[in-house]
């Protein structure tokens, strides 16, 4: 069944007429994603690609189409505002692709979402794709995924594609490929994603792609050890990252001696989760421990 949404979930796109929004909206539509509306203030009444109605506000879009989820492609200064708007309009799932959102904006958004029972994915993430459901909420390339039993969680974008591509080439399709984002404050974290995959009967194996910074991987390891029976393998990027330097992602930093790749590897391995030395080893490692 995959996680977070199905082929029936009605999706709208905030920022659908922008440069990035329109490019990715076309790709999402081309994949078969159920996009029912777009939102760009001042563009209400127009149609996108001859079939998707555009509205001035999310509220209008939800009222007219019954949209339940939103994917956000708006610039960083307006990204938190767009998340508030989607939640206020009743969207229960919000995926924020935008990179470069001020961290305190996200801190402010979180209790608002919690009160309304809204799930946020991102920001600064590639979103997710459910190949068996033909649903793509984000920017992942569709040509490298395939339907199947493997779930994937990652803090990164292209590194995720690298591993997804290897899975697909090995004949291992995916229930959901989820990029949770590289910022310090994100909506859905490793733990939340694990809980969702744990509740999905179709996901029979799991790949976790972590990186330096924070201790989300360590917490995830504890959850896996305590709760999950399906095979889980991992890869951690950033073994060679110098301490105190931000490695591209705002959240990818070793600070005060903690958040290192070595610590994460240790925590994962002591929870029985094998950690690949190279991205190319992830799939063989999974095949090794997965008794089908």
């Amino acid at each position, binding site marked *: 069944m995959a996680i977070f949404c199905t082929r029936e979930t009605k999706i709208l796109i905030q920022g659908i007429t922008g440069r990035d929004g329109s490019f990715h909206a076309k790709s999402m539509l081309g994949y078969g994603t159920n996009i029912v509306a777009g939102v760009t203030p001042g563009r209400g009444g127009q149609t996108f690609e001859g079939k998707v109605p555009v509205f001035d506000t999310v509220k209008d879009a939800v009222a007219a189409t019954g949209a339940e989820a939103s994917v956000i492609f708006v610039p960083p200064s307006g990204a938190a505002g767009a998340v508030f708007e989607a939640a206020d309009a009743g969207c229960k799932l919000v995926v924020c692709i935008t990179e470069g959102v001020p961290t305190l904006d996200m801190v402010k958004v*979180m209790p608002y979402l919690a009160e309304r029972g809204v799930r946020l994915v991102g920001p600064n993430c590639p979103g997710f794709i459910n190949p068996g459901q033909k649903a793509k909420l984000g920017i992942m*390339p569709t040509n490298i995924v395939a339907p199947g039993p493997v779930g994937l969680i990652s803090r990164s*974008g292209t*590194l995720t*594609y690298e591993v997804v591509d290897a899975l697909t080439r090995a004949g291992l399709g995916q229930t959901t490929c989820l990029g949770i984002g590289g910022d310090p404050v994100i909506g859905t974290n490793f733990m939340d994603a694990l809980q969702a995959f744990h509740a999905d009967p179709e996901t029979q194996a799991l790949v976790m792609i972590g*990186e330096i910074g924070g201790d989300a991987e360590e917490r995830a390891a504890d959850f896996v050890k305590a709760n999950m029976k399906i095979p889980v393998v991992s890869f951690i*990027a950033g073994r060679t990252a110098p301490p105190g330097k931000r*490695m591209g992602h705002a959240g990818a930093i070793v600070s*005060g001696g903690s958040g290192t790749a070595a610590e994460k590897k240790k925590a994962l391995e002591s929870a029985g989760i094998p950690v690949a030395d190279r*991205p190319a080893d992830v799939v063989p490692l999974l095949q090794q421990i997965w008794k089908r």
Partner: protein
Amino acid sequence: MNIHEYQAKDIFRDAGLTVPPGGIATTVEEALSLARGLGLPVMVKSQVLAGGRGKAGGVKFCKTEDDVRTHAGNILGMDIKGHTVRKVLVTPAETIAAEFYLGMLVDRASRRVLLMASAEGGVEIEKVAVEKPEAILKHAIDPRFGLLDHEAMAVALRLDPDVKRARQLADAMQKLYKAFLAADASLAEINPFIFTDQGVGKAIDAKINLDDNALFRHPGYAALRDLDEENPSERMAREADLSFVKLDGNVGCLVNGAGLAMATMDLVQYYGGRPANFLDIGGSSNPDKVVNALRIILGDPNVEVILFNIFGGITRCDDVARGIIAATERMEIKVPIVVRLTGTNEAEARELLAKTDLVGAATMDEAVQKALALAGK
């Protein structure tokens, strides 16, 4: 972006915290004249973006003008963890009856600003966190209501049972939160917050890290950036809007995506090599961006080979290949270049590369191995 103590103190003053006066000197003469104006004794404090300044001998108590001459003379030009001291802060020396640690940071797990406070002030808080974690009190601040009076007071009273002093501590915590929000900080610390023998509370040290993502709404903070503290190649990268970190190896890496860029560096090391840098070139195939990236990397004389690792995804690989070829044709490049491109139209991309001197590779592992074989040849 990290800023100096004296800059952080200005932000603290604006938020209403009590901070001793002081001035910045770049010469011994300036330091002397500041000391005379403030009145002896003073502290002379090196201003570098590195921790452990005191341990390194970069913070000195000066009782006399001769002390100021000696210490300012020693500290100016001193190297602290690879940072050259170019300025010192001259500030009155306070009598310290008690010292505390007050800090705030964005906590990933609670997704809130976390107040941290400890009666173990004046020492490295990272050390306290490891050796005596129970000595650090924590409170996650609800962004809707801020740090409420009773919340601040509850923490303060556990730090110091004296009500008068606890009130001052609580007030300082609330003002620290105000400063944190006003500056869009990712970290703000007062270490130590002291009480003088008269019972007056003061922030005698200050540290603030700013959230790079929020700098766009603080145009004034551009002036706080200390260009002397920035590695020249990192400055070029920042100005070209590229995410770059300089390392000390010989394999120059250009990768799209931060996670893949880290994994590429790791793979270089896995095969026994050493990466020269972290560089995320992003999803663009724009030759100008590639030229900028190559200039930054080739500015490092250690670089003996260049490794492109691009997972195209939606981006068309033939476009990226054309961008790389155009960029390399516009520059004189004396080191070999290995290019790995995967994704849409990768076959076309490989055909384009085959007509050039660039070395193609199909996988990340192949690319890294080829780059290492070519390094230094």
